[in-house]
């Protein structure tokens, strides 16, 4: 799809500025999101390319304004709903409950 992920040739995004000794994860939640993706992928209900397609479907403005592992979380939420592991309502209810607790 012609999404925001297909950045090749786009101007105005600034220089690529690699961090020296960049850690694999910049926060604990990133590690958890990646682990959740691998664990759910192990069910074998979707291919790695279906995982990529799920991340590509993030709305373009949101895609450009969010970080790498936020894309992974968006894609995983889509896939678990599409494949009947969770409903959107269950995810929203859990987010609301966690928000109240913090």
């Amino acid at each position, binding site marked *: *799809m012609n999404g925001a992920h*297909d950045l*090749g*040739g786009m101007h105005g995004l600034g220089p690529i500025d690699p961090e020296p000794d960049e850690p694999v994860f910049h926060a604990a939640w990133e590690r958890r999101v990646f682990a959740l993706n691998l664990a759910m992928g192990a*069910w*074998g209900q979707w*291919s790695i*390319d*279906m995982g990529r397609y799920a991340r590509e479907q993030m709305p373009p403005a949101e895609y450009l304004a969010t970080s790498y592992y936020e894309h992974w979380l968006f894609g995983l939420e889509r896939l678990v709903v599409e494949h009947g592991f969770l409903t959107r309502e269950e995810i929203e209810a859990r987010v609301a409950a966690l928000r109240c607790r913090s």
Partner: protein
Amino acid sequence: MPLLTADRVAAALRRGDGFRMDVDLPPRFTPGDRVRARNIHPLGHTRLPRYARGRTGVIDRDHGVFVFADASGAGLGKIPQHVYSVRFAARELWGPEASARDSIYIDLWDDHLDPA
């Protein structure tokens, strides 16, 4: 659907997903062939970047047979196709201001290409 219990996760991750396919499939192109990337705009997943669509390149090498990612992304399973490293001159992609010496190599599948 089999239950994925904690004790089975490590083995499932090690097994992973295979992308190279052991299938005897004749290649549509051979190194040196001139090809044009198709001008396609699928709603699904594709490995053909927008900037290469409709552009002419040369088959540099044949990587062998792999799962066609575009079909796999649509949930169509493991369809075998040759993947080639295709060389595009920078000027073909980016116009006369690009360096005449630079090229971009893109890994593309049979279904991304037509003879040029």
